[in-house]
């Protein structure tokens, strides 16, 4: 187990601080679909951000700002919950 930290160096109780550099790339096993948005129809309700299980919705200054495909697994939840029906799932070309 080379490179793993000894017990003395681990956070108390295993409490983990967020570290973007270490985040798992859940997009690596995407389903073959990816979300696509028609921004003209977006009402900025951010329900997609609320429901996304993988933090794949980007928000900048409180506004919807697209998808993080490093994280998106293609689960289609954002498309299902979008009240403006402005998110569609399309074939993921890689």
């Amino acid at each position, binding site marked *: 187990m080379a490179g793993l930290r000894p*017990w003395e160096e*681990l*956070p108390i*109780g*295993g409490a*983990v*601080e*967020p570290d973007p550099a270490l985040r798992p790339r859940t997009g690596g096993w995407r389903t073959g679909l990816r979300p696509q948005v028609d921004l003209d129809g977006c009402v900025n309700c951010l329900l997609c951000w609320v429901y996304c299980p993988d933090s794949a919705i980007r928000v900048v200054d409180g506004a919807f700002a697209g998808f993080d495909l490093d994280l998106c697994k293609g689960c289609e939840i954002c498309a299902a919950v979008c009240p403006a029906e402005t998110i569609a799932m399309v074939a993921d070309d890689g």
Partner: protein
Amino acid sequence: MASVRTARLLTGSEAVANAMRQIDPDVVPIYPITPQTPIIERFTRFVADGETSTEIVNVESEHSAMSAAVGSALAGARTMTATSSQGLALMVEVIYIAAGMRAPIVMAVGNRALSAPINIHGDHSDGYLARDSGAIQLFAENAQEAYDLMVMAPRIAEHPDVLLPVLVGQDGFTITHSAEPVELLPDEAVRAFVGEYRIPAPLLDLSAPRSQGMFAMPDYYFELRHQIAAAMERAREVIEEVAAEYEELSGRRLSALEEYRLEDAERALVCMGSTAGTVKDVVDELRAEGERVGLLEVRSFRPLPIERIRAACSGCSEVAVLDRADTPGGVGALHAECAAILCGSRARVRGHVYGLGGRDLSPAEIRAVFAGAAPRYVGLRSAS
């Protein structure tokens, strides 16, 4: 022992409820069970009368009580609860989690037998069930000690090098329902002694977000779980530091281990809880008859004061260990540990199981234990 002149007549339950009132915890998630119920009945009356600012969380089971306590303690609120017997059994799953997540919850326990058959009376089976959970476990000899240990408990639990749950046990009925002289410290003295609740990374500190309750694979589980063992080792010292500070405040020293007339003892008896008081009287009688006997009262079952037990018994040739819980198919837990600790010393270690389900242990039986004339199961009716 309280000076009777300044003491009030309180049951162990009332004594502990008063300690909780003085500590004024932020959150108390609770579910009732005999013989713990009087603790929380008395405490919730203090809350209803406005004597504390505690938020009581009425839950639907002890499992939920301990679960709520974990969330509350890690969120950043001083959290206490109480239970007994089946309630502690139901909590045990979550106590392991509380210890692993390093939640410094303080819990009063009215130690009681486990079913079946159903029995509401005192023994240590419930405490033994939580033995390896990672919770610190203290046993009081009487109502005064139950109060004292409860006041000490937050300081031990919340110490930055410890951060573990602390269970303060008192024998069901024998202490929880027994009224004795108890000296309470002034409210402000207790509040100053326990201080403000501080943990290193409260979940409600939004400036430093953290995730708690992580998953760990074989590459890290061992290391994270070992933190508990290391914290327990440190807790040995912390208990004595807090006990020394508490002695300055109260005049009473509650060490992890009390050596009673052991200085030149040939034969020692080891036990926990209310039985220790009765044994002290028997030791005095036997000493008056010229017998060199003494008592080793274990107040901290976890962490067990291993080195001190070894040192205290170094001069003894006979050590009898009393377990107030059975280990069917094995060796009594305290007996086995004392035997391991004293392995290689000149002491011959014997073990006895006694007092299950509230069965009385008489001074005559204690004399028989000292004399080496007691059976393994003391007080058991047997046809053979």
